[in-house]
């Protein structure tokens, strides 16, 4: 992958996208975008909140159409690299049960200067929430589980 000086052509567009069923190693996600040509490195970590609008969340649970989710995450990752002139980009989303305080999603971007890295991370998070076939349920302390399918969201797949 990236992080060492070598054949520059293979370092370009480095990074990865994926889903995992265990705790996200956020340091590793950040390390994946390190490069001698990157002066700005941003790591965004989205974590499970213990309360939302006053309601206690026992845990979050994520479901996904995994092949389509991974393909979409990777397409967004490549799009971010092209749009923002990134050196590298990595995206990891966790699936299954996520207790409060633990990471649900991690996005790392690197660019020659920090502005592009920050902007790309923000753009990616917005795109992930809008486009990737992953769903979140809030598990309540009483065992109830509510899947979130936002009314305001456009039909997935876009276009039509």
């Amino acid at each position, binding site marked *: 992958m990236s992080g060492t000086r070598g054949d520059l052509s293979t370092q370009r567009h480095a990074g990865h996208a994926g889903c995992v069923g265990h705790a996200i190693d956020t340091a590793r996600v950040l390390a994946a975008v390190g490069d001698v040509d990157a002066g700005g490195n941003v790591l965004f970590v989205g974590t499970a909140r213990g309360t939302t609008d006053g309601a206690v969340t026992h845990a979050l649970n994520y479901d996904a*159409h995994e092949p*389509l989710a991974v*393909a979409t995450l990777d397409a967004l990752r490549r799009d971010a690299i092209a749009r923002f002139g990134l050196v590298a980009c990595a995206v990891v*989303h966790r699936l299954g049960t996520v207790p409060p305080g633990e990471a649900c999603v991690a996005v790392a971007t690197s660019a020659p200067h920090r502005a592009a890295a920050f902007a790309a991370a923000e753009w990616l998070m917005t795109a*992930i929430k*809008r486009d990737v*076939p992953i*769903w979140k349920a809030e598990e309540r302390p009483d065992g109830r589980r509510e899947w979130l399918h936002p009314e305001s969201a456009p*039909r997935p797949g876009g276009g039509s």
Partner: protein
Amino acid sequence: MLSSDHRERSPTLRIAVFAGMADLVGGRTVEMPWSGGTVADARRLVAERHPPAAILLSRSAFAVGSHYVADDAPLAADDDVAIIPPVSGG
């Protein structure tokens, strides 16, 4: 013997469902006899079989493999079909 032969020959469409849609249809897959048709036909059949899912279904997309498909796209019984309701990841 006859009935099992018949079952093997009768084409079935298997649709993967997720999240709230899985709760509404009571499982991770919806299966129905399929002699051919479009996404719109499958959409109508799923809604008829699972009325509580009709509203969420109307806000959902369909995918075959790792591509979204439009309502007028034809579906074959061996296609890897999935219903994709509005997403909430991140």
